[in-house]
């Protein structure tokens, strides 16, 4: 009995002493006081020193992409530290190119705030936030494309420019998996700020798409962050050609809603390519824009229609259709959306039709 008593006493007092030592040293050695983080020389925030830059920013609701939760393994949390970041750590070097190292780019999860620090964050990222989204509907569009509808939790609202995308955080849904972020263009009306709709094509064995198709159900809550991306309408009045296939429909649908909202009078034509008639979707909905918009034409193109499908529209590759349908496109702007292969092929055709390279905007789903 006495031995038990003594042993418990001795071991716990040793543990206690060590813990006390650590607490004291934490208080005196690892105490960096209050430090200021200067963002873009516009905004200063005061933070408790000693934490990572990333967690300081998250506390202030500044959302920096981070897929690994600050363990220094994803390399997403890059930002520019002008002054006060200390030395580059070996945990960062694998993720930074030589040019980035020269430009003072750091991994914000590895930089510790020890003193006042001056950083630069892209403007775009400052408006990025994380949203809790509740799945409110899933509709089959084709055999491998679905429309996913989400409502934002609470009375949250998201402000985005038509054409931008959000990142969806795929939770771990199989043993040995890890959380991943995947980008999806917002397909819904930008005025409908309390909702997000995504058009997603199933990638065989794809981590995120398999999750969405097989595990996500109505009522589930998932996290998204955004908006990101430079793909949106220019400020000009030039006529436009949209080319998209499959899930590339998403940003175009959003852009068309935006044009309707703003009463845009721009001339536009949209070529939507598919292999079979059964792979076309939302045809009636997009056709409706022909009535609602001033000068809009919708041209679905099917590459290999089955005779049984009685297709009466254009046949052939979408690029061929563009080439024969649009004769002179020199004053057009082009917006391409979809697989890198399709974008490259369309880019060539457009160049042939005289669209200047700087007027071809694209969103590659790679």
């Amino acid at each position: 009995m006495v031995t038990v008593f003594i042993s418990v006493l001795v071991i716990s007092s040793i543990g206690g002493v060590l813990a006390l030592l650590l607490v004291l040293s934490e208080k005196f050695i690892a105490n960096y006081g209050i430090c200021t983080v200067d963002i873009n020389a516009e905004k200063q925030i005061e933070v408790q020193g000693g934490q990572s830059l990333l967690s300081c920013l998250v506390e202030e609701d500044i959302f920096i992409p981070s897929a690994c939760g600050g363990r220094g393994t994803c390399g997403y949390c890059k930002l520019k530290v002008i002054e006060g970041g200390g030395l580059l750590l070996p945990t960062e070097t694998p993720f930074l190119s030589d040019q980035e190292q020269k430009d003072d780019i750091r991994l914000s999860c590895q930089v510790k705030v020890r003193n006042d620090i001056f950083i630069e964050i892209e403007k775009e990222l400052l408006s990025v936030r994380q949203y809790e989204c509740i799945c409110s509907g899933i509709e089959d569009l084709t055999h491998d494309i679905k429309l996913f509808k989400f409502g934002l939790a609470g009375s949250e609202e998201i402000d985005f420019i038509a054409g931008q995308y959000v990142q969806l955080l795929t939770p771990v849904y199989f043993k040995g998996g890890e959380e991943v972020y995947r980008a999806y263009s917002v397909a819904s009306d930008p005025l409908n700020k309390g909702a997000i709709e995504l058009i997603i094509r199933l990638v065989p064995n794809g981590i995120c798409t398999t999750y969405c198709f097989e595990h996500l159900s109505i009522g589930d809550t998932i996290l998204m962050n955004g908006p990101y991306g430079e793909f949106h309408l220019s400020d000009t009045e030039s006529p436009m050609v949209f080319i998209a296939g499959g899930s590339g429909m998403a940003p175009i649908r959003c852009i068309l809603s935006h044009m309707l909202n703003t009463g845009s009078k721009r001339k536009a034509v949209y070529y939507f390519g598919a292999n079979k008639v059964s792979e076309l979707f939302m045809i009636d909905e997009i056709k409706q824009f022909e009535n609602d918009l001033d000068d809009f034409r919708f041209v679905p193109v099917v590459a290999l229609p089955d005779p049984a499908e009685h297709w009466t529209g254009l046949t052939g590759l979408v690029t061929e259709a563009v080439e024969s349908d649009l004769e002179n496109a020199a004053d057009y702007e082009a917006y391409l959306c979809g697989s890198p292969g399709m974008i490259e092929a369309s880019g060539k055709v457009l160049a042939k039709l005289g669209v200047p390279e700087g007027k071809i905007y694209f969103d590659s789903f790679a």
Partner: protein
Amino acid sequence: MPISEQMWLMLVTCFSAVFTSNILLTYFLGMCPFTSVSREVKTSVGLGLAVIFVMTATTMINWVAYHYVLEYFGLEYFRFILFIIIIAAFVQFVEMVIDRYSPRLYQGLGIFLPLITVNCAILGASLFMVIRDYSFIVTVGYGFGSSVGWTLAILAMAGIRQRLTESRIPAGLQGPGITLIIAGLMALAFIGFTGVL
């Protein structure tokens, strides 16, 4: 034992800990960082130096704690727990200190320190020193020698693995697979040192 004899014993123990009874290649302790960090010579050096420092220091502290606290109370069987908490607290403390006072050192070693708190070679060295009944002076040599031996092994492995990146390895063996096979071959080579002592 007179001091001069102890010094001699310390040197011998140190030597054998580096070569003939290398803690990694004959006892296979500390395999986890060995396989995961040995991809680059540069990081291996950092990790190796951190191990040398921590192992030498903790075997010394643990020796004192064991002989003056545990033996005094007759609680030798608590050495596992005691050694673990001492190592953990020590590593944390050191990390805090160098983080604060030496950014250079922190850049080189600091990030490896948390990694080795849970390294079984560190605990193993403390336990071996108790089992083998080393005196304090010999313990210093043993802790230092074992960690240098560990560092030597990981450096050799990193050197080999850097070359492996250019060679063709069967898909199934890539990564840890080939590393373990190489570790086995290195262990065989180190057995050759046994005749020396």
